[in-house]
């Protein structure tokens, strides 16, 4: 710690430039923090997605007279397939509430979904209430806030006109309760399939968008998926069964996905300031060669001088990393309405202690890389040359 005054004066030799470097480092680490946070979020999403939950849809929507829909009669057959512990059916109803821009989607489920989709954040009592009231819905917090729904209110959904037998485009629902959000499931509005089916014309009844399967303990999700698809392969309604985790992996990594771009972008940001800090340290050491020569004459070992240079590189990087990560954390808390419209769709970066650890580690590496060349130069410092000013 006796070296601290030396380091301090070295840092503040040119105060304006020191502050500017530190600000640039902070900006780069803000980007790094956001990207690393995104990585952690995607990781959590993948870890928490389940292999024992399957989603069944029509395999050839262009081929069937029902298009994307499947007959509900398949449910009983699926339940008898080995490895299936529960199977529920769901029907999606799209429409808007009050204003055509306030779009909503109701997921109408049947009673068996209670077991098949048990990870929904509904208590047993809430499931009971849902099935007791045909027009009841449970809304998760995010759509409730977006649509302005409150418990006990009527929720008339205006959908496409041909769906109901009475040709009325309005579907009456009642909000039974507001349930917490679950990031793994996303926003949802849960309704009753029985109500939907009763209101449909006769020829449209008995068709659902898909089924959800809970795989029995000990069975493998991918095997059960294949078994289900093989069962229906030669029928008039071939199915496509995909485990939740497979869906999540595909969604994250497909196309021009953001997940694959995370580390290149973070790396580009760090590379950008690597050259800045390296340049700064190299110049500072070059200008102070005679100072170092004096110190060496006084008896400071060469190793300590190298450590001095490293510390001088490390402190702005470290402070910048911590502040940048903090700023990134602050940015993730910005409410959605201040964000540009499409960005609120991507998952929120999680600024966890792990991200801070990565930032600090990266700062150490950055400092080491920047200070490497000057440190090596110092080791080969010839005291006489330096004092003579050569």
């Amino acid at each position: 710690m006796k070296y601290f005054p030396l380091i301090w004066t070295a840092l503040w030799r040119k105060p304006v430039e020191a502050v500017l470097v530190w600000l640039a480092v902070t900006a780069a680490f803000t980007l790094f923090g956001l990207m690393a946070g995104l990585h952690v979020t995607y990781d959590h999403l993948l870890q928490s997605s389940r292999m024992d939950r399957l989603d069944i849809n029509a395999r050839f929507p262009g081929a069937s007279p029902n298009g994307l829909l499947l007959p509900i009669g398949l449910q009983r057959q699926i339940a008898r397939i080995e490895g299936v512990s529960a199977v529920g059916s769901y029907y999606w109803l799209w429409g808007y509430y009050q204003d055509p821009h306030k779009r909503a989607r109701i997921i109408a489920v049947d009673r068996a979904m209670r077991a098949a989709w048990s990870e929904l954040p509904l208590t047993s009592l809430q499931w009971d209430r849902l099935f007791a009231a045909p027009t009841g819905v449970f809304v998760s917090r995010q759509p409730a806030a977006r649509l302005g729904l409150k418990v006990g209110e009527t929720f008339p959904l205006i959908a496409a006109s041909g769906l109901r037998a009475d040709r009325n485009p309005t579907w009456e629902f009642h909000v039974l309760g507001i349930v917490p959000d679950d990031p793994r499931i996303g926003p949802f509005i849960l309704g009753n399939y029985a109500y939907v089916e009763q209101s449909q014309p006769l020829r449209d009844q008995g068709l659902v968008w898909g089924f959800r399967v809970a795989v029995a303990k000990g069975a493998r999700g991918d095997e059960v998926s294949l078994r289900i698809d093989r069962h229906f392969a030669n029928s008039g309604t071939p199915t496509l069964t995909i485990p939740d985790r497979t869906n999540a992996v595909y969604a994250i990594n497909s196309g021009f996905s953001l997940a694959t771009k995370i580390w290149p972008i973070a790396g580009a940001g760090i590379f950008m300031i690597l050259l800045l800090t390296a340049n700064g340290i190299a110049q500072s050491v070059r200008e102070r060669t005679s100072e170092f020569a004096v110190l060496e004459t006084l008896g400071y070992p060469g190793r300590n001088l190298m450590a001095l240079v490293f510390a001088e590189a490390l402190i702005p990087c470290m402070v910048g990393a911590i502040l940048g990560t903090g700023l990134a954390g602050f940015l993730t808390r910005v409410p959605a309405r201040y964000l540009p419209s499409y960005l609120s769709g991507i998952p929120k970066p999680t600024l966890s202690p792990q991200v801070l650890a990565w930032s600090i580690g990266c700062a150490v590496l950055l400092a080491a890389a920047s200070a490497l060349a000057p440190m090596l130069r110092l080791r080969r410092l010839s005291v006489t040359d330096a004092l003579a000013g050569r």
Partner: protein
Amino acid sequence: MVVSMACVIGVLLSMLSFTSGMLRAYGAGGDPDFAVVLSPDNGTEYGNAIPPAAVGTILDAPGIAAGPDGHPLGDAEVLLWVPPMPSLRFTGSPELRGIGAAGLALRPNLSIVAGRMFRFGRQELIVGVRAARAYGLHIGDGIALPGGEWPIVGMFTDGGSILEGQLVGDAITVISAGHASGFGSVLVRLTRPDAFGAFSRWVASNPALKVTAERRAHYAARTVNLYSGFFTELAYVIGAIMGVGALFATVKLTYAAVSSRTHEIATLRAIGYQPLPMAVAVLLEAAVLSLVAAALGGAAAWLFFNGRLVADIHSVFDLTVSPRLFMVGIAWALTLAVLGGLPPAIRAARLSVAQAHRAT
């Protein structure tokens, strides 16, 4: 400074090449003569909402150009997903577009490069070169569709449009094999671009039809915006954060440059140069370096990303680092240079001659 700015511009242009490539493939800003007729419930070319009976009525609308045989240049088409097939490069499913004979007349750039054209009325398909590359399809492969396996009999190009990422077959055969109730869209060629107004009004107000008309270029732009909007916004946000870092780096390095040349500036002031040319010189230097950075960053983005095949959920296209994108890069670089060079330029201007000489 050049490198830090080049990094920002490289990252920005690489990410924007996604949207740029999509825009180019969809032909946004293309031929103003073309219009698409869609179902208003849907707003896209998917679905089967336009019944065959309505197509004849639509083709009677005013403003549609007539082909060499006197028939109106309009084509009823259908667009659907094909189930996923195992592929070496990309997972996902290509799209299948069913067109009619008029569809070929409306697409003069479509040319077969291998194999032959499919025959109308048969269950045959041709595959675009991009889809073939992305999904590993060859002539002779069978695509599992209703009615059995439809063989691919040819490969085509279409001037780089989005069609090259799709399979093409006969619309009527596709619809009847799938027992679907109608077409998804009708593509028409208008006599003149401003015939669109009359055409659109006629089609929208006809009581026998439930359709809307839209210029194809506008539909393309809207579709691209829908699919790539978030990526563009993300690109700008990331570019902005990196840009802030580059800004501080620029200021710092320009300060360092000015302070290392204090003697030189003092001498010039002593000779008689006014402060303003000093400041302008600093700014100009920053601007020139930033142009070099823009060129470097743009070249890096072009080298690594231009022409790369991307299979997004709906589209297969090449990433494009277009000239317009280079302009964007140059604009960003110059902005950074001016903003970043301003404080040091002001300091260079306010340097008093004696002070400068004393400092050296």
